[in-house]
């Protein structure tokens, strides 16, 4: 099996991609203290998976994060963010920040910002991964005359 790119690229990708993932997660979690937040972090997380996709081909990546799973995760991310917004209704106003604000410069500060960041990071990361994977898979499937993406995944398992 000689799928994907050359051995050098694969090795570098193997070394780098965990760091990118951790970097993305830290951008998400520390979004209210340092530059970053849900969106940049989510995009970085997506790119950690996408470089694996480019280096190894899709089969290996889809074993780690399957399309079905990322499909469900990005819906859950969206609903979670809506729920964070809806917590404001506990005190009567949509989007009211009802959590304890904490202390400036500590991880727990800004009330619900950290929850929103995590929800958005989850949503953006998984949905971009999903979109790019689908777009890159479409080409392969058209050649084999097999377009539906969910079908293909069962072949891998």
């Amino acid at each position, binding site marked *: 099996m000689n799928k994907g790119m050359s051995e050098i690229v694969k090795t570098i990708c193997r070394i780098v991609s965990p760091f990118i993932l951790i970097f993305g997660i830290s951008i998400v979690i520390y979004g209210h203290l*340092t*530059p970053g*937040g849900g*969106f940049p972090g989510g995009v970085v997380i997506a790119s950690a998976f996408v470089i694996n996709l480019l280096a190894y081909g899709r089969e290996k990546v889809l074993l780690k994060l399957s399309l079905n799973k990322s499909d469900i995760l990005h819906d859950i991310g969206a609903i979670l963010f809506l729920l964070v917004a809806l917590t404001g209704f506990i005190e009567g106003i949509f989007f009211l920040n009802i959590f304890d604000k904490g202390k*400036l*410069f500590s991880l727990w500060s800004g009330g619900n910002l950290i929850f929103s960041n995590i929800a958005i990071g989850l949503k*953006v990361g998984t949905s*971009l991964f999903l*979109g790019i994977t*689908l*777009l890159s898979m*479409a*080409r392969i499937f*058209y050649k084999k005359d097999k377009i539906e993406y969910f079908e293909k995944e069962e072949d891998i398992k």
Partner: protein
Amino acid sequence: MIIYIIISIMFLIGIYGMMVKKNIIKIIIGMNIIGYAVNLFFVVLGYRNEGIQPILVPGIDIKEFVEKAVNPLPQALVLTSIVIDLSTICFLAALSIRIYEKYGTFDLEKIRRLKG
């Protein structure tokens, strides 16, 4: 002023790509350039001469921070607008793949079936 004019020239280049070019990928590129120009415009709007970034770091007094930092509002908007651009490009790429599958080309001249 000259900065705004250069940005509007960039915007017009994007419009050129969308209006005149007949290749779908070129049209997407033109759209992307329009997005760049608009984002740039927003960030430049918030820029303050000798301003610092709108993120508080330990050691800076809040009053000094308020007096010195650049306007954070346009930056928040640009974050939204970048994501909207990315989504539109995602969708258009899927559309162009689909069109390619039917016609075997990205060239709109060979595709055009609809009139008016």
